[in-house]
């Protein structure tokens, strides 16, 4: 374990930025943290998390896949893929680190999505423990997410005056090597104390008792036709906020953009909440908002675990709790239709 003083963290950022693009949460003009490319003068935000999740780094909202030129009856296809550059994402919280694993299980299973894979390979994730979890946090509901000791290539802890680092992977070791001269070896007393502090707060969180035990693979029949879906979805606006701020939502659309002198085929995030998500020439298999609403939650709580050894498609980051225009969210759904709070 190594540490540096909080005052000198910008030196570390400077060191990393010499060779890699470095992204970290920085407070924007409206005071809200956004993952921003670090440069001299940018300060690491104190905010718990960003509104937009870091899934963008591996699965950007818009990404060009290929280009076409057409002349007469002929089509010329250009593969525009480029190897991603090495980059570092700094300050990722435990929930978001976990979300990468959930995305990996989609994009890195055969056939591997090369766009995603390339960025994943070149990205180094420096996670940081959550010193001040918020009331909307419920990562404890899910297995393998530890806000006191997040995963990632490197784990960091930020205390009052210092930042501590521990490498977890080979990529992480390389990262540590790079910042070696700016950090000093230390024992883990301070980190242990920080962990205890966080653990104590976690025990006080209002959603600490939320349980997902009622859900999981093979529960389709249990939940699909419960009448509560009507009530829960009655006022859903059908916007895509929850899916777009969600770190694990991975549905996408592939569209063509005609530039006037060629066609760019791009992919962009899509939302199962949108009315035309499943619309086909011959009709739509999800006609009402209730069905679309149900799909989103069933996917996270039942379908995804069924295909992925019981792992839920939610990491409890609380973004949808904070951002849904009508404050409808996965916690309300879980409580209403299944997971009564463990008393």
């Amino acid at each position: 374990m190594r540490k540096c003083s909080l005052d000198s963290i910008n030196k570390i950022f400077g060191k990393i930025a010499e060779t890699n693009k470095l992204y970290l949460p920085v407070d924007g003009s409206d005071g809200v943290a956004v993952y921003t490319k670090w440069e001299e003068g940018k300060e690491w935000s104190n905010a718990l998390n960003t509104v937009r999740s870091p899934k963008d780094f591996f699965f950007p909202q818009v990404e060009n896949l290929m280009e076409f030129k057409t002349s007469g009856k002929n089509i010329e296809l250009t593969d525009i893929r480029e190897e991603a550059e090495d980059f570092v994402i700094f300050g990722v919280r435990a929930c978001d680190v976990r979300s990468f694993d959930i995305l990996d299980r989609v994009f890195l299973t055969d056939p591997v999505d090369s766009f995603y894979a390339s960025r994943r390979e070149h990205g180094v994730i420096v996670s940081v423990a959550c010193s001040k979890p918020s009331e909307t946090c419920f990562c404890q509901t899910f297995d393998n997410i530890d806000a006191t000791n997040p995963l990632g290539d490197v784990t960091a802890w930020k205390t009052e005056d210092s930042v501590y680092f521990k490498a977890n992977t080979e990529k992480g070791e390389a990262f540590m090597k790079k910042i070696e001269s700016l950090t000093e070896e230390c024992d883990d007393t301070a980190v242990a104390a920080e962990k205890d502090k966080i653990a104590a707060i976690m025990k006080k969180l209002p959603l600490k008792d939320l349980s997902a035990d009622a859900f999981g693979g093979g529960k389709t029949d249990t939940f699909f036709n419960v009448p509560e879906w009507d009530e829960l979805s009655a006022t859903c606006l059908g916007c895509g906020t929850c899916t777009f701020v969600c770190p694990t939502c991975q549905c996408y659309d592939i569209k063509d953009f005609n530039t006037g002198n060629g066609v760019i085929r791009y992919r962009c995030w899509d939302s199962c909440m949108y009315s035309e998500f499943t619309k086909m020439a011959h009709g739509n298999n999800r006609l009402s908002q209730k069905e679309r609403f149900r799909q989103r939650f069933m996917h996270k709580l039942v379908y995804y675990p069924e295909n992925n050894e019981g792992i839920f498609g939610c990491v409890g980051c609380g973004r949808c709790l904070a951002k849904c225009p009508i404050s409808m969210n996965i916690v309300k759904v879980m409580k209403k239709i299944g997971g009564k709070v463990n008393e």
Partner: protein
Amino acid sequence: MQVKEYKPLIVAFCCNWCSYAGADLAGNNRLNYPADVKIIRVPCSCRVNPMFILRAFQRGADGVIICGCHPGDCHYTSGNYYTRRRMAALFSMLDFLGIEKERTRVEWVSAAEGAKFAATMNEFAQTVASLGENKRLEDLRCKK
């Protein structure tokens, strides 16, 4: 190396009944106006949806002008009155977003005003040329 002279691309939406005929007349009378004015014929100036204007900019236009019958002379009685209100609101909004207001214009050109059509286009092209390329409403994907 010779520097290519910058010639703005102008999209002119012309109503079928007055301005398009005006453009025709300008042509028949051999009046000069820039070749980079691309005329799109519309049934009435009020057919021009704000989206058309934005899309023209997206596709590389540096200026967009809408020409219709003089107020009171609309083939459909009142179409151009609506154009007048809509475009006033839209242009003001574009200006609000910091997009150069000189890039958009509405002119009333009757079928008999070939000379006015040519003069308007010359003058508009010059104005837009002095602003340079449209950068604030461009779509880089379309500029490759």
